[in-house]
């Protein structure tokens, strides 16, 4: 059974019809990529799933329950964690305090263990654990945002443009980390403009175009698809 099932959702910004009936499924353990150009509705889709925006029509079913009307903070408790676009680290807190904030909802005593596994995944964060997050480089901030999102022990991790503004070397580091997270059993829904990278690590992909799903396929066949190659991968 699908972990997340999005059925024909319509989301509006005031009068602007941003999502015009988007449907897709994410199975447990998969990496799913949502690709598309600016304004296609990728971020809006993530915000709608995570509860920051409410769809006017349609339903979102997560773990067998309807969640489209549920508040964002309660969804975190149910295991949906989001890394927002532009990272959103707490600039005035240290790296370690940021990670602590990520474990805000938890009351079990194993936060320290997970802190260490976060540091194991991104050793650079450990070097800078007492440093204010605002003084980190863009790549380090992205690593911190991902590590922080993992601190709430999510089942589903929503990633919004993790490669944005990063140097190619760091994009590789971040995407390797995403693969490792997936291999540990976390389901991943990834929104990316960098379709090339996203399709390399994803199992399946959905191509969004002006608020609708244009087509979908396995990541491998999407990479071979002529339209995708032309429009999103820059291959003629």
């Amino acid at each position, binding site marked *: 059974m699908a972990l997340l099932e999005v059925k024909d959702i319509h989301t509006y910004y005031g009068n602007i019809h941003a999502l015009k009936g988007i449907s897709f499924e994410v199975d447990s353990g998969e990496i799913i990529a949502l690709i598309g150009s600016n304004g296609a509705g990728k971020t809006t889709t993530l915000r709608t799933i*995570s*509860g*920051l925006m409410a769809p006017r029509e349609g339903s979102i079913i997560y773990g067998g329950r309807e969640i489209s009307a549920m*508040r*964002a*903070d*309660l969804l*975190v*408790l149910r295991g949906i*964690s*989001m890394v*927002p676009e532009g990272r*959103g680290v*707490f*600039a*005035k*807190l240290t790296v370690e305090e940021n990670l602590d*904030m*990520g474990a*805000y*909802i938890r009351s079990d005593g194993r936060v320290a263990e997970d802190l260490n596994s976060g540091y194991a995944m991104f050793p650079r964060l450990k070097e*800078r654990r007492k*440093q*204010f997050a*605002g*003084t*980190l*480089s*863009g*790549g*380090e901030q992205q690593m911190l945002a991902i590590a*922080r*999102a993992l601190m*709430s022990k999510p089942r589903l991790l929503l990633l919004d443009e993790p490669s944005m*503004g*990063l*140097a190619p070397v*760091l994009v590789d580091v971040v995407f390797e980390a995403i693969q490792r997270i997936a291999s540990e059993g976390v389901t991943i829904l990834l929104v990316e403009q960098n379709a090339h990278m996203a399709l390399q690590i994803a199992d399946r992909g959905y191509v969004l175009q002006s608020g609708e799903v244009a087509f979908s396929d396995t990541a491998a066949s999407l990479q071979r698809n002529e339209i995708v190659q032309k429009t999103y991968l820059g291959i003629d």
Partner: protein
Amino acid sequence: MNILASQASRRVLGLGLLSGGFILFAGVIGMVAAFHEREIVDDFISLGQVLLLGSPFITSYLMAARLTETGEDPPVILAGGALIGLLTALPTVILLLFNSDEYRYLLDASLKIIPFVAASYLAWKSHAQGNETRQVAATWLVAALLIGIVSFGFALIFEVKGDLRGVLVNVDRDWVEVVTFDHRRELWTGIGLLLAASAGAGLAGVIMRILPDIPRRALLYGLGVTLLVGAFGETVRLILQENLDRDTLREIFRRDTLRQNAAAVLFIVSTLAGFLWAMFGGRAQSEFAALDDSRRHTMRNLGMLLFAALLLALPWLIGRTLSDVAVTIGIFVLMGLGLNIAIGLAGLLDLGYVTNYAVGAYILAVLTSIGPLGLFKGSFTFWMVIPVALLAAMFAGFIFAVPVLRMRGDYLAIATLGFGEIIGKLALSDWLKPLIGGAQGVQNIPKPFLFATELKNPEQLYYIVLVASLVTLFVSIRLNNSRTGRQWMAIREDEDVATAMGIDTARAKLLAFTLSAATGGVAGAIFAAKVGTVFPNSFTVFISINVLSLIIVGGIASNPGIVVGAVVLIGMPELLREFSDFRFLMYGALLILMMINRPQGLIPSKLVMHEAHAGAKPKLSAGD
């Protein structure tokens, strides 16, 4: 020409004219004459004269600091200081001449000449830029015409009004007396004195700057202490009055003014103290830093203990009048601590804080008053009603917070500003008049009793404010370090991310507004009991603005900063009554200066300090 073009001389000219413009402005708005009424040292110098001479002194000091950096020679800098002094006096001298009976014609003449001179200057500029003759001529004509019209307008006004006083009401006999150093009748002697004193102050400023470090710090310290004691003479005398016998006091003060001998002794002693501190202060500090932790800890605790003892003994040290001021300051400290929960901790810009203050005050008034509007004719006491006022204010805070929960930043500020206005209008309304008295307010509010003692003096009320402030301080520190504090921090930084961390932002914001309101209610109740009457016009938007300003001036989210901010913004105007008319002018100037030079506040919190730091420094790691 060459000298004029050099950067140093342009800086001197610019600064001098700025300083002169300031002095002229201060005179025209009546500040100089009003400040003259406060004598700093008996029969020697007044606050007005300090203003006249302080401007060239400080300007030259700053000029000298800049020019030493760029490597100018001392004689050049000294000449610059004298020039700044002369330029400072110049606009005032011109106004003096225009204002005098004998030289009134100069005003007429210059009003006639100015259009031609100004137009010719502009035409010359235009010529120098290489414009054609036709354009130069056109520039001259248009400029002469436009400036001429303005000039003619002024001439007409002066003609109709008879003299300058008709237009500039503050350019009167008092002003002339001050700026001529009491030589109103011998105008040229007065002008000479003004020019000489101003140039001397400019020179003194330069000399002060180029002195070696240690004597300079000592002298500045001595000068500063003497001026402060002189300016706050009334306050200092009130404090000493509690602790000295009358004869000794009379040796030091003539009424509220420092005597010359006392001032001289004070200056020498404080300069010496400054000298010692400049010589050995650095070493003392490093020795303190070198102490081992436990001993440093003991010394800190000792310091805290001393401070606590001082706080406890304060009313007995400073006497009744100043205790009254201290209570007012305390009420604002209380409100500052409360509002800081919303603004500093949760980042919610609340401009309607007066609402809570008013609710607390009116609740106490209506429930305890023994007058016609009192509901229970005194059967409820202050202590029984304080919790009610607190809960009522929390309730009001809650009610007002619900509709604005989804608003952020500027929108929130404007909405809360509206609530503050609503409360003011409600208090004045006919609708609530049977309950809270409309414009007449509620009267006959009894003072609180402690056992059988009526706490009717400010010295006694001080302790209520002190205890309330300490409790609030304790609660807000504990809150800040709690899970709730972390929620607020996350919301302050980024509401969306806070939600993504699983924080119920609506609940956290409601809590911040409600808790913040609680202290406002207590402050209002104490205010009502202190004054004994409650009027609607005590609850204007200025209360909200004052509380906000004291938080910003002290340093946002910094608890010691709030106390300092309250003393500076609430206490100073109470103590310096000569400032009263110019309070808002100085308030504005102070705020602008603060925001330029010390945007993080007088005593910034650690977090903000880090932020300001991070902005100034390059990022530590290389960008990607």
